[in-house]
């Protein structure tokens, strides 16, 4: 699988986690791709933390409105039935549990559900933006990440080493190697990419994996 296929696999699998009527916040990058794979018959509402619900697709060239951007500052559209609000209300929605699912990337995630995705000391300190509120506030937190770093190092750890975004909030991790539930301090593999054995996945994972009795293969067709 090339990088593009891996990312599509992750985004498509996460889209299966969404239910009709869900309010969903998708982080920048890979998480945003989830919206391309929403199953037919599932209507979700996308929340954009800079101040609206009803986030729509990228506008056609020339149709951009500088007053309508997503949380990455990129031009977007709003769907009929959407609504604008200020930043306090936007984060009241997020912190108050009115977002059903948030999907975010990770630098590191661990078996306790800790997530680190906002800074690397001495290197990159972009700031947490809305990530800390999203991870604490959303009803369900799904991490979308490639299984290992560019250097081949595990990202699914026993214990995060980087400064945390939030402690013990992650519910599910989806990578190109599998789907991992975080429960009671355990990282449980519930689906695996059929291209790999459990042993191969464990080698690429620092956290000790628990294999679900219901372990299934991920659908990797047609990527």
């Amino acid at each position: 699988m090339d990088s593009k296929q891996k990312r599509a696999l992750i985004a498509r699998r996460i889209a299966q986690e969404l239910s009709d009527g869900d309010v969903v916040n998708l982080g920048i990058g890979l998480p945003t791709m989830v919206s391309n794979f929403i199953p037919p018959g599932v209507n979700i509402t996308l929340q954009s933390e800079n101040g609206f619900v009803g986030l729509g697709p990228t506008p056609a060239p020339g149709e951009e409105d500088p007053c309508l951007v997503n949380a990455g500052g990129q031009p977007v559209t709003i769907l009929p039935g959407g609504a604008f609000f200020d930043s306090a209300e936007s984060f009241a929605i997020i912190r108050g549990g009115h977002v059903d699912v948030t999907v975010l990337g990770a630098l590191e995630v661990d078996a306790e559900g800790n997530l680190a995705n906002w800074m690397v000391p001495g290197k990159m300190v972009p700031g947490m933006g809305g990530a800390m509120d999203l991870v604490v506030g959303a009803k369900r937190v799904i991490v979308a990440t490639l299984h290992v770093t560019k250097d081949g190092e595990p990202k699914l750890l026993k214990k995060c080493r980087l400064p945390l975004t939030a402690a013990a909030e992650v519910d599910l991790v989806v990578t190109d190697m599998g789907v991992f539930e975080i429960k009671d301090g355990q990282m449980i593999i519930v689906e695996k990419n059929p291209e790999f054995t459990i042993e191969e996945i464990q080698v690429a994972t620092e956290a000790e994996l628990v294999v679900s009795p219901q372990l299934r293969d991920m659908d990797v067709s047609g990527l």
Partner: protein
Amino acid sequence: MPKIMSQKEVIGLVKDGSSVMIGGFMTCGTPCGLVEELAGSGAKDLTIICNDTGLMGDGIGMLISTDAVQHLIASHIGTNPETGQKMIDGKIQVELVPQGTLAERIRCAGAGLGGVLTPTGVGTVVAEGKEEIHVDGRTYLLEKPLHADFALIKAWKADRKGNLIYRKSARNFNPLMAMAADCVIAEVEEIVEVGEIGPDEVVTPGIFISYLTRRSN
């Protein structure tokens, strides 16, 4: 009733060392005319409270480029590498605040509250030095109000009483900052007569607004 002033004149009120809130998210909803005027005024030693520092040399980035900022309170600086560099060089002292906490802290100041308890940041570096308070078995951080000498905000339309409406996602922090500063300066695209914005439509009541200004051309 707010006074209507030129941008140059109104920015003249901001003295070196002032604390200044600036609305906007990236450059969307940022009062770029006022920011440009402030950067051009040679202002120094400002404390800037804002969501982010825009792009390099653009939006609030203009104030970073002119070394106007001593202390920055923001949720995100990653889109402007100059801010990160000046932070590393010790030229700007940066306090990073989760975006929702930033919004609530500004709201607290405007609403006369002494603080809020938020679950955001518990168990992270954000909790360092902050009081933890337990309510009904859950841990929260006590986050304190953020007030400023000035707020520079951007709205779409104002009436002559200063009642404001915003356009789309350009609303963001502007209505909150309008309540949290001693002197509130609103950059607007259009100033209409009283009565043209209906009382049910108003987002920010004019009672908060000290000055109205349009971007100089």
